[in-house]
C-alpha cells in the first residue's frame, strides 16, 4: 500500500492516459478521433508532469494567507513543473487547434475524414 500514494496514482493514471491516447492516435481512422486521442495523450502527459512534482503534504505554490511568505520552499510543491504544465497546456491547445484547422481543410478537399484517404504522397 505504500506505493498507493497520490503521486504514484497520478503518475500511473497519467501514463495510462498517455498510452490510451497513443493507442487511439495510432489505431483510429477518423481524423477527429485521432485529434481527440492526442488531447488525451496531452492530458496524460500533463498529469505526469504535475504528479512528478507533487510532494506529499505540500500545497500548490501560490502565495496567500494560508502559506505566508516564509519558508516557502518547504511548504510548496516544486513550482516549476506547475508553471511548465501551464505552458504545456497552452501549447497542447495550440497544436490541437492547428490540427483541427487541418482537419477542416482536409475535409474540404476530399470530403472525408478517414486518414486512409490522405495518402497521395508516399514512397
Amino acid at each position, binding site marked *: 500500500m505504500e506505493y498507493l500514494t497520490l503521486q504514484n496514482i497520478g503518475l500511473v493514471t497519467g501514463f495510462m492516459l498517455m498510452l490510451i491516447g497513443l493507442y487511439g492516435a495510432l489505431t483510429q481512422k477518423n481524423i477527429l478521433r485521432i485529434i481527440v486521442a492526442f488531447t488525451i495523450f496531452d492530458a496524460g502527459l500533463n498529469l505526469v508532469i504535475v504528479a512528478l512534482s507533487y510532494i506529499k503534504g505540500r500545497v500548490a505554490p501560490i502565495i496567500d494567507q494560508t502559506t505566508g511568505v516564509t519558508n516557502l520552499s518547504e511548504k510548496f510543491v516544486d513550482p516549476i*513543473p506547475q508553471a*511548465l504544465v501551464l505552458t504545456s497546456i497552452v501549447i497542447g491547445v495550440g497544436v490541437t487547434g492547428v*490540427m483541427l484547422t487541418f482537419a477542416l481543410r482536409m475535409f474540404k478537399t476530399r470530403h472525408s475524414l478517414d486518414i486512409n484517404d490522405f495518402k497521395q504522397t*508516399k514512397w
Partner: protein
Amino acid sequence: MVSPVHIVSIGLITAFLLGLGKKSQQQMLVFVLMIATAAMTMVSGSWLIGLMTGSLKPTDVFTAGFKPPFAINLRMTMDEAVLTTMVNVFGFLTVIYLFDVLKKAGKHLLSIIVVFLIGLNVVVMTRDLFNLFVFLEITSIATAGLVIIIQDSKSISAGFKFLMASSVISGILLIGIIFAYSYVGNLNIDFMTNLSMVKGGAVAVFLVMTAIILESKQFPANGWALDMYESAHPAIGSALSAVSAPAILFVVYKLMPMVPENWHPVIGLLGLITFAFSNFLATRQENIRRMLGYSSVAQGGLMLTVVAMSVYFGQSFWFIILGFLLTNFFAKAGLFWLNGIVNSDDQNKWGILRKRPVLFFLFGVFVVAMAGLPPFPTFFAKWEMIMQLAQGNGWGWIVLILLGSIFEIAFLFKWFGRVFHAVKDQPAEPVIPWFKEFPVMLFGAGILATSYYFIKYQQFDNLFVLIPLLIVAAFVVIDFLPAFIKNILLIAALTFYGYIIYPEIKGNIMQLVFMSVFLVGGILTLIPGFATKGTRAGFYPFAAMTIFGLIMLVNPGDNLTFFMGWEQMALGSYILILRGKKAERPAQQYMLFSAGGAYLMLAAFGMLPHFAGDTFFGNLSGLIPGAGVVFVLFALGFMLKTAAIGLHIWLPGAYSEAEDDATPLVSGVLINAGVLGLFWIVTSFGPQQLFGYDIFQLMGWIGAITAIGGNMLAIYEEDMKRLIAYSSVGAMGYIIFALSMDSKLGLLIALYYMVLHFIYKTMLFMSAAGVIYRTKTRNMYEMGGLIKSMPWSFIVVLIGIITLAGMPPLAGFAGKWMFYNAVVMKGWYLQGTMVFFSGIVAFLYLYKLIASVFLGQLKDNHRRVKEAPFVYLLPQFIFVIAIMVLSIFPQVLLEPLATIIPDRVPGEAILWDGRLAMTSFGYWNAFAVMTTVIVMFATIFLWLTYHSRKAQKVKQFNIVFAAERPFRPETTHVSYNMFAGYKKALGWLMTPLATQFWTGISDWSTAIADKVRSWYTGNGQTYAMHLLLYAFVLYLLISGGKIL
C-alpha cells in the same frame, strides 16, 4: 553591441505590427517583413563578424535578471552566430523569393514566417531545455502553417501527418525534460552534463535525445518529413532543409555533453544509415521535390553522424561539419528554389533552365556541390571525415558513407544529365522574375565563396591547385566569347602553364613524361576545336577542368591533391561526355563508375597512413600484411578508369557518344590517368599479397583477360568510335598485364605503351572525328571508299593501325619485342599467350576500321565528301611525325623511360649498344629494320612502277564480278558483320557477362529500393508508429536490452 535577444524582439514586434496591418496594405507589410528579417540578419550578422574579428566576446543573455539555472539564458557564441545568421539570411531571402506569394496571401502568413524564424533563432540560442521544447513546438506549428501555402490536398494532409508526428515527438521530449528536471532539479543544459550518471537519469537523457533525433528525420522514421518535402512549396522545402534541419542538429550538438560517450557511436551509425538509405531510395525518385527531400534527409543523417561523433573528430569537427552544413545550406536551398522557378517536378520540364545559362550553371554548381565533388566544401569535408574515421579503423562507417555517396551521385547526376538533355524547345523564353533569380544567384555566389575559403584553408600548392582552378573559373566567366577565341586562350593558357611548370618538374622524368602527355595531349586535342562555329558554350571550362585535373595528378603535394585532381578530371570529362547528343545514359554510367572508382581510392587513401605515413603513396618496401587490401582498392579504382574487363562497360558508350572532337581528350589523354595511378602503386607498393595470393599474378590475369576481351568486343563493332573505344580497353589490358609483370622490362613496356597508345589512339580518334565530321555517320558500313576524298586521313589511320598492330618497322613493334622478352623472362606463358592472341585479334578490327571506311565501295551520298578540315589534320600529323621519330630512334623514348623504373624492381633492363637493343634473349635494331624496309619498298615500288607505267585508272564498278555487274555500292561493300565466322567460332568468348552482372546489380538494387520505400505508406498513423518503433529500437541499441 545589439543584444542577441533583439533578434527575437524584432521578430515579435514585427509579428505584432503585421497583425495591425490591413488587407490593402499587404505589399507594404511584405516590405515591413523584409526590413524586419534584414534587421534580424544585421543583428546576428554583426555578432558573426564581431566574433570572427575578435571585437566581440561570446556572451550569455540572461532573462529576468537571474543567472541560470534560475532563468532562461540565450547564448551567443561563434556557433550560434553562424547558425542564426544562416537562419536570418535565409529568412530574408525567403521573403524576397516568396514576394509574389506573400503579396497575395493573407497577413497571417507573414506572421507565421516571422514566428518560424523566431522559433529557429531561439532553438539555436537557448540553453534551457523547456524553453527549447516551447520553441520547437512554436516552430512546428509555424512549419505546419507554412506547409499549407499551397492549399492542395497533398500539402494539407502532409501538414497533418507532420502535426501528428510532432505531437508524438513532443510528447517524448516533454516526458524526457520533466524526468530530467526531476532528477537534476533544473532545466539548463549546462547543468545537466552529469544527468546520465544519476540513477534513472539516463532514461531522461535517452528520451530527450530520442525526441531530438526523431525531430531530425532519421531513416526510417521520417515518412512525414518526406511527404512534407514533396508537397510543400519549394521555398518551404528549402527552409526545412536548409535551416530547420541544421537548427535541430545544433540542438543535438548542444545536448551531446549530456549523452554518455558509449551512445555516440550508436547515434552516429544511425545517422549514417539514414545517409546511405535515403540516398539509396532517392535513386528511385522521379519526383524532384521528393528526391530533394530524400537528399535533405540523407544530408541530415550525415550531419547527425558528424555531430554525434564530434568528440571523436576533435579538431576536424568544425571543418567537417561546416563543409556539410554550408554546402547543404547553399546548394539544397538553391535547388529547391530552382524547383520553384521551374515550377515542375518533372525532370524533363527542367529543360527550361537551358535557356538561362546562369541559372543552369548554378544548377550544375549546386548538383556538383551536393554530390561532394571538388572544389566544393563537401568534398573536403568528406575527405577529412573518412581520413579521421580510417584512423580509428571505422571501416564499416566508411563503407556506409561511400555507399551513400555513390547513390547520391547516382540520382543527382541522373537528374543533371536529364536536365542537360531535356528538350530545349520549351515554350519561348521563360519569364523569371528578378526576386526569384536573386536568391538563387546569391546562394550560388555563396557556395563559390565558401569553396574558395575551403580551398584556401587547405593550403594547397598554389601552382598545382589554385592557378588551375582560377583558370577554370576564368573560362566560366568568359564562356560567352566565340569558341575560336576561347580555343586560342585555352591553348595559350596550357602552353603558358607548361612553361611555368617545366622548371618545377624538370628533374623528375616520370612527372615530365606524364605532364607532357597530359599537356601536349590537351593542347593537340583542342586544335580540332577551331573547326567549331559559335560559342560552344560550356565546353572550355570543362575541357580546362579535365586537363588541369589531370595535371594535378602529376605532382600531388599530398594525397588530397591527387584525389582532388582525380575527381576534378572525372567531373570535367563527365560534362564533356554529356555534351554528346545521345550521351545521357553513357555519361551517367561513366559518372557512376568514376565515382565508384574514386570512392574505392578514397577508402584506400584512408587506409594508407596505417602503412605508409601521411606522404603521398608512401614507399613500402617488402611485403606488409594488410597492404594488399590497400593495393587492391587502389588498383580497382585505377582499373575502373583504365576499364579493365568487367569494369569496362561504361567505356564504349562514354567514348563513342561524347562529342567527336572531344573524344580524343576524354579517351586518348584521359585514360592515361589510370595508367599513371597503376604505375604509381605498382612501383611504390611492390609485390603484395591478398589472402595469401600474389596480387600481381591476379592482375596479370585481369590484364590478359581485358586485353582479349576488349579486342574481341572491338571486332564485332559496327560503330567506328565504339570500335576504337573497345580497342582502348584492349590496350589497357596490355598495359595492366605489363605492369603486373613487375619487372624492369614489364614496367618499361607499360610506360612505353602508355605513350604510344596515347599517340596512336588520340590520332585515330581524331581521324575518326574528321571522317564523322564529313560523313555525318558513325556506322562504318555506311561509309566506304573514302581514300579517294580523304587521303590524308587514310594515311594517318594507316600509320595508326600499323603502330597499333605492332608491325615492324613502326614504333609499335618495340612494344611487342619487349613484351616477348619480358614474358619469357617472367615465365608467364599462358597469360602472355592470351595477350599475344589479343594483339593478333587486333588485326581484325584494324582491318575492318581502315577497309570499311577508306577502302571498298564509295557510297553515292559521299561522293562530294571533302578531306577533313586542316585543324583536324594538323595534330594528327604531329602525332604521325612523333611515331616516325620513335620508329627510327626508339631509344629516344625508351632510355629516359627506363630511368623512371626504381631499382627495387627485379628483372633485367634493355642494354643499348648504339642503335641495337639487347636483352639476354634477343636483340633488335630499329634503325636497321627501318632502312632495310625502306630500301626494299623503294626498290620494289620502282620495279612495279616501271612495269605498270601504262596502268590505267578505272571507275568504281569496273571489277570482275562473275559476268554480272554490281548495281549499287550499298550492296557491294562488305563491312557489316564482317567477322561473322569469327563470331560463330569464338563468339562465346564475348558473352556479355559484365553487362549482365551490372544490369543485374542495377535491377536488384532497384527492386530492393522499391521494396524498402514501400515502408513509407503515406499514412500518418503508420509514420507515428514508425517513430515509436524507432525509439524502441534505439533504446535496445543503446541499452543492449537492459534497463538504463
